[in-house]
């Protein structure tokens, strides 16, 4: 079995509170913050893995801060649309951006007018979500090795939430290294890719169990392999990397949060010191 290794990207939970920035890098929380609703601009469609996490985070934030948190889905352009909207937002601590590590690809390919390495001035990793290679259960393969061999006779189509996303690059890497005939079909979001998989339009979908869990549990979709190097709790036994025939394909989603501009005191305090939020 060949060994594949792809140090990837991930989905970032990128909270950009283009907030106020105090001198010397110290962050000050304005009195009474927050005095109005907080907006989280999410780069994924409603129902996607990132969206689901953001809604949970938003709900927790709202309960802790006593202020509404609005999840604002802005899809398109493989994260570019949401990134630009967030970058133009007022630096007042009321606008956050939640995206994926696709942001890194957006920066690398210079699809935005700013440098994501410098303009996003601070951040933190908030979570990791394993990326699974989920297939239509009618596909007569037991592991990735079978999958690659099967594609030699007929091309297999896989969906993603857009060009330049983690899922796209991960599968392109596997395609390049294995010689498989995998064809990319970009959709507007992960949820649409999953629907296409269930409808038989595509045969594969590299995605999160967060969004595909229900389909997997009902047998309408099958996680063929966990693409992450890291062993996540809850990984289906048959999707274990070794069983699936992947030894070192490292392709995971890392949910991260960071802010461009100033700090997001509400989120920061929630994350680091929950008891201090309302004090």
């Amino acid at each position: 079995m060949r060994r594949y290794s792809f140090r990837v990207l991930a989905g970032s939970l990128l909270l950009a509170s283009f907030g106020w920035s105090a001198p010397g890098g110290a962050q000050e929380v304005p009195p009474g913050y927050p005095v109005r609703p907080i907006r989280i601009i999410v780069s994924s469609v409603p129902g996607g893995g990132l969206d689901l996490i953001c809604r949970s985070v938003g709900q927790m934030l709202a309960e802790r801060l006593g202020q509404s948190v609005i999840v604002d889905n802005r899809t398109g352009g493989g994260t570019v649309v949401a990134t630009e909207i967030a970058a133009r937002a007022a630096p007042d601590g009321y606008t956050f951006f939640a995206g994926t590590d696709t942001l890194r690809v957006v920066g690398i390919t210079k699809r935005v007018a700013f440098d994501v390495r410098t303009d996003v001035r601070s951040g933190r990793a908030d979570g990791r979500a394993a990326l699974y290679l989920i297939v239509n259960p009618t596909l007569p393969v037991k592991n990735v090795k079978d999958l690659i061999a099967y594609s030699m006779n007929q091309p297999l189509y896989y969906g993603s939430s857009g060009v330049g996303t983690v899922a796209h690059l991960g599968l392109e890497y596997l395609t390049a290294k294995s010689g498989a005939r995998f064809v990319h079909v970009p959709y507007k979001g992960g949820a649409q890719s999953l629907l296409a998989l269930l409808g038989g339009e595509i045969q594969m979908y590299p995605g999160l169990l967060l969004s595909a869990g229900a389909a997997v549990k009902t047998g309408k979709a099958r996680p063929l392999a966990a693409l992450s190097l890291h062993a996540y709790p809850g990984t289906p036994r048959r999707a274990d990397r070794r069983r699936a025939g992947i030894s070192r394909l490292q392709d995971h989603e890392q949910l991260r949060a960071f802010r461009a501009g100033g700090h997001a005191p509400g989120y920061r305090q929630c994350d680091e010191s929950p008891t201090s939020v309302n004090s």
Partner: protein
Amino acid sequence: MNSPQMAQKLTAEGSQAAERMTPAEFKALFAREYDEVERQIRQIKVKIY
């Protein structure tokens, strides 16, 4: 993200909260991975347009 409720939710779906790190640590990690991914994108010659 590190609250017990969120940890439980993520674990149930094959995910988990990330290790905690400071903004500076995150920025350094982001920069390292940026360079690595940039190299790999060039390697596989995938068109992202």
